[in-house]
């Protein structure tokens, strides 16, 4: 079932790649271009891994964009204060986790739907980030953090920029968690039917708080990568990024009603969006065309999925 679905998304990815390959030519698949795409996808991917778990559990997190911005600010502030780069990164990830914890506690404690809670915290965290940065972009000293997503040709990383290796490792970890751990299976149960999960003794509240905290930490890491790309802490960055992240999960076969979603699908979904972005710009198509194409793909990917599950029922 899930494998069948993943195959569909991967076929979609191949189709889009092929299309641009024909339009642009073989140089579209040159190692340098592929690496560029991978680097572009990395940030969305990390946040989307956390979002996949949240969506599998039947939730949603609209605050990821804001958490990414907060995370860049925290990283910059810590580096300016003279912290080691590793501590700065850890601090930023912890800040993200705290934001996620707040989401989880509010959702389970107030029993308000995640959409509303995270809509609120989206503004709240964005405001906090701006306050922390004094509404400015924060310059920070140059450290190895800035080379996380640098191209291999600059001599950082093996085969791939080492920031990408982190992303790949996390993707494997999340995939294993979802398929092979009790926590992961419980997330599917909660997303598929919260009442059934409760009947079966799943500690639903605890699981939800955990999954939002993890998603927050992932968004925090996405912020560290964003900082690495920008080399400044910017509280206005990643505005609306949550929509791209959610779109990646949905194109990848995740269902907003919960109980569905895979890591492979999500990565393929993020890949499709990057391909369109880079393909369009390299083919000389204006920005508005990209947006129309991406929007169309979201609508049709989901419609196709519904249609497929209806006829096979």
């Amino acid at each position: 079932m899930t494998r069948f679905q993943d195959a569909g998304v991967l076929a979609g990815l191949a189709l889009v790649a092929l299309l641009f390959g024909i339009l642009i030519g073989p140089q579209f698949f040159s190692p340098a271009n592929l690496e560029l795409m991978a680097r572009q996808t990395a940030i969305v991917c990390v946040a989307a891994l956390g979002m996949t778990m949240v969506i599998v559990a039947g939730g949603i997190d609209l605050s990821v964009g804001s958490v990414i911005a907060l995370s860049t600010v925290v990283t910059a502030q810590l580096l300016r204060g003279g912290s080691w780069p590793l501590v700065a990164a850890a601090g930023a990830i912890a800040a993200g986790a705290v934001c996620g914890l707040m989401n989880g506690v509010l959702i389970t404690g107030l029993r308000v739907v995640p959409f509303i809670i995270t809509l609120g915290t989206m503004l709240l965290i964005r405001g906090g980030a701006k306050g922390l940065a004094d509404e400015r972009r924060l310059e920070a000293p140059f450290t190895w953090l800035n080379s996380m997503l640098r191209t291999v040709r600059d001599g950082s990383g093996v085969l791939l920029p080492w920031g990408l290796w982190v992303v790949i490792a996390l993707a494997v970890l999340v995939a294993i968690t979802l398929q092979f751990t009790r926590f992961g299976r419980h997330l599917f149960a909660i997303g598929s039917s919260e009442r059934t999960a409760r009947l079966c003794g799943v500690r639903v509240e605890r699981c939800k708080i955990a999954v939002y905290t993890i998603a927050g930490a992932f968004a925090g890491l996405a912020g560290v990568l964003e900082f690495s790309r920008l080399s400044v802490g910017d509280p206005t960055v990643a505005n609306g990024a949550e929509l791209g992240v959610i779109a990646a999960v949905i194109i990848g076969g995740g269902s907003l009603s919960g109980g569905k979603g895979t890591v492979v699908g999500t990565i393929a979904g993020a890949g499709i969006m990057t391909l369109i972005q880079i393909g369009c710009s390299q083919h000389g198509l204006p920005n508005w065309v990209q947006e129309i194409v991406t929007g169309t793909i979201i609508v049709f990917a989901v419609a196709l999925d519904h249609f497929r599950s209806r006829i096979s029922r």
Partner: protein
Amino acid sequence: MVETVAPPSRRFGAAGAQFEMRGVRKAFGGTVALDGVDLAVGSGEVCALVGQNGAGKSTLMSILAGATMPDAGVMTLDGARYAPRSPREARTAGVAMIYQDLSLAPHLSVMENIALGVEPKRPGVLGASGIVDRDVMRRTARAALEQLGHSDISVDAPVGQLAPAAQQLVEIARALASGCRVLVLDEPTSSLAHADVRKLFELIRRLQRQGIAIVYISHFIEEVTQVSDRFVVLRDGRNAGEGITSQTTADRIVTMMVGRTLEDLYPRGRRLIGDPLLEVEGLAPDRLVPASLTLHRGEIFGIAGLLGAGRTRLLRGLFGLDAVRSGEVKLGVYKGPAAPSAWWNHGMGMLSEDRTHEGLATNLSIADNMTMTRLEGPARGFFVSPSRQRERARHWIERLQIRASGPMQQVSRLSGGNQQKIALARLLHHDVDVLVLDEPTRGIDVASKAEIYKLIGELVSGEGGHPPVVSGFSRTRPQKAVLIVSSYFPELLALCDRIAVMSRGRLGPARPASEWTEHALVLEASGGSVPRRDAQRGAES
């Protein structure tokens, strides 16, 4: 005023009948819900439609209300042929149905609800462009409420703020405003307080005097005897009798409802009742009288009662799914109230009555559903092995003869009987000592029912359940204990060692099943007051 009481004969003459249904048949798939049912109600007559769950009352009424198409049969309304193709057509023809769960829009006002779907339009251009005439709407609503003798309800109040009884009035007013001549009330007292029930009965008399034909559906025999002129009994989709209410007794009506003798569906193995396993003391879930019971190893304890008596709430409180006000649940040495996770850990599992929304996560696979409470894998408690899950699921699919393509099949694709077996297999896989079963055979076919009865019997006698650890080596397994709630009394009588009846939130004393008859259970559950035979003390051991 009500001189046109119908003759008790089933051959109801067309003269005087407001509506008549004759030879109505309806089958859903293989199961026949109605097998040639007749029903006729005269103008200004209250006819009670009684029967046990699954007797066909709801199907018959949904055919009358245009929500279901009959396979065969003739219906007439005011002597003219009547064949509604939708609820809307039925309503236009003058047939209105008040369901147990009211269908009102809580955020709209009383008058908007009364006019819902038939909003009066303003004259001229405004009307043509869809502008509603609120003055006409208000007048119609006021008139309808007045007809009910309830001008006290404000037509501008949002319906959601009214009490349940007032909401029901709004729904009846809506029926009147659309010019109904036949009114069907389905279990109308289920959400009403005692005083409101009396007022409802007065209202029914009032409508009766206005010449409306009323069909009154209820489980409660006492209500039937109070409110109706005539009664019609359905049993297993057929007419089982009818009569004039004032000339009969509650006892006779129950006899007609129960009818048949037990089929040989229930194999009974040897039963050895052991030590107390589960003790419930003064457990008080919301809106229930504190309840106590003791369940022994090797025993099947039944709780009989009607829908809405509070049986499910008692079980949910017991299992920690809902909060309780007070009380204690003891399972071996463990004391609750506790959350479901604790009960699973200590060897108690529950089967939900709501199979599709709570019992099973229907989007997940058979394997996931069966093993959800006990996911096994290499590192205990952390990792899960999908192949082990599938292997266990395969075992139970075979053991319970579940018709499925394999352990990875999505549960929603299976039939009700097979789904129920999966939900039950979860308790077997977990190997619980105490099985709490809420309506384990609701809505499933007879063959699956028989299999489930057999399985439950084997569990308490220590023959079924988890396979021995060493295969091929036969081993006696500990006997289990089963607490079972059902609205289907024959199965309780045949399966259980002891039965207690729950009625209107109160759990009565438990008696050995041999001291009960179906008749006595129905009477007790319906709040009837006929003296019980063998009313012995001390049955609650």
